[in-house]
């Protein structure tokens, strides 16, 4: 026979359980609201990062002859630090391409490799794109890798996909395969990565407009990004 308590005691355990449940929910609501303050923290970080960024160019130049798209004498330079396996970078790329089309030779985009260690194939993908660059097809390979991000990033052997893209682009696949493993190619990626670290890159994608780091918010929201681009352009008098 189970000993069920009587009277007020009946309700007490449920009151205790209820209080704990409400407490947990309240805690979650409170914390999610306080995440607005994290934007302020990020803005403070950006100020220190921007001073550091302008100095970094001297100590960490990144890979020599970086890959650039856009107007050679553009008043606005966007330096992008990205990881090919990062979904947010994959999402940003088509937006950037459209922006490049819309702004024409008023902007130029410099691509910098920043493969994160938690992305298994990011370093490989970066080397593959650089290897294609040795045969003059960097941007085409870069675009192909991003366009098909979902395919190769979940595969057992992404090299198969990269070699497919190389074939489609008319590259010498043997050479491409060998170049992907070359030290000088790896060095390019590492040089970009070190430049990113020196400039205060904390994650990908990271964008620098004429040397000033953009907040995560402005980077990921296309409207905000275009606004920032317009602001920087008018500040440069163009």
């Amino acid at each position, binding site marked *: 026979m189970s*000993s069920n308590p009587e009277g007020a005691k009946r309700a007490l355990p449920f009151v205790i*359980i209820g209080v704990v449940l409400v407490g947990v929910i309240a805690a*979650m609501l409170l*914390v*999610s609201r306080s995440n607005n303050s994290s934007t302020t923290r990020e803005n403070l970080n950006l100020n220190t990062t921007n001073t550091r960024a302008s100095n970094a160019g001297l100590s960490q130049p990144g890979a020599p002859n970086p890959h650039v798209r856009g107007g050679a004498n553009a008043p606005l330079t966007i330096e992008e630090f990205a*990881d090919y396996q990062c979904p*947010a970078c994959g999402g940003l790329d088509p937006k950037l391409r459209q922006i490049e089309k819309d702004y024409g030779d008023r902007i130029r985009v410099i691509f910098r490799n920043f493969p994160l260690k*938690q992305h298994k194939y990011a370093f490989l993908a970066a080397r593959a794109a650089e290897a294609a660059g040795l045969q003059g097809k960097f941007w085409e390979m870069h675009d192909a890798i991003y366009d098909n991000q979902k395919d190769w990033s979940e595969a057992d052997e992404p090299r198969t996909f990269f070699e497919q893209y190389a074939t489609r682009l008319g590259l010498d696949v043997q050479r491409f395969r060998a170049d992907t493993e070359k030290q000088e190619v790896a060095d390019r990626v590492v040089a970009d990565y070190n430049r990113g670290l020196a400039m205060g890159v904390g994650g990908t994608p990271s964008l620098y407009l004429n040397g000033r780091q953009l907040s995560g918010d402005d980077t990921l929201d296309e409207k905000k990004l275009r606004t920032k681009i317009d602001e920087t352009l008018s500040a440069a008098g163009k």
Partner: protein
Amino acid sequence: MGADETMKSGARGLWWDALVALVALVGLLDATYLTIEHLSGRSVRCMIVTGCDEVLSSRYATIASGVPVAAVGALAYFTVFSLAVLAAFGYDSSRRLLAPLVALMFLATLWFLYLQAFVIRAFCAYCLLSAIVTTTLTLLVFARRLFGPKTRLA
């Protein structure tokens, strides 16, 4: 059993249950914190990771449809907590559910420890805390069954 002994074993039973509830509460707070971290602490960008970030941003941190593992853990701890509180107040039938639930949580704990040690190869302190809590709960619940006060499970 004399009335005296029934009282004593009843009181000891209460302490066991209260202890289980308390330990489960610690687990609940930990798992809630992790759920919050998981859901709101990370921006959509991919960050340079260290320790807890590495574990929480791994694909093992969510179940199929994007539910954070930590949220499931919080739910489990809350259930254990509720069952223990009810048991402490004499709802003996709720104690029956404790053992299978805690056993399941323990298996999950072993799985997550394995993942951290051999697959992700990074440890998150809060996950380890949860592992300790679940192990403690397992020991408590099963020790009580073997050595604890005899209560008639209705």
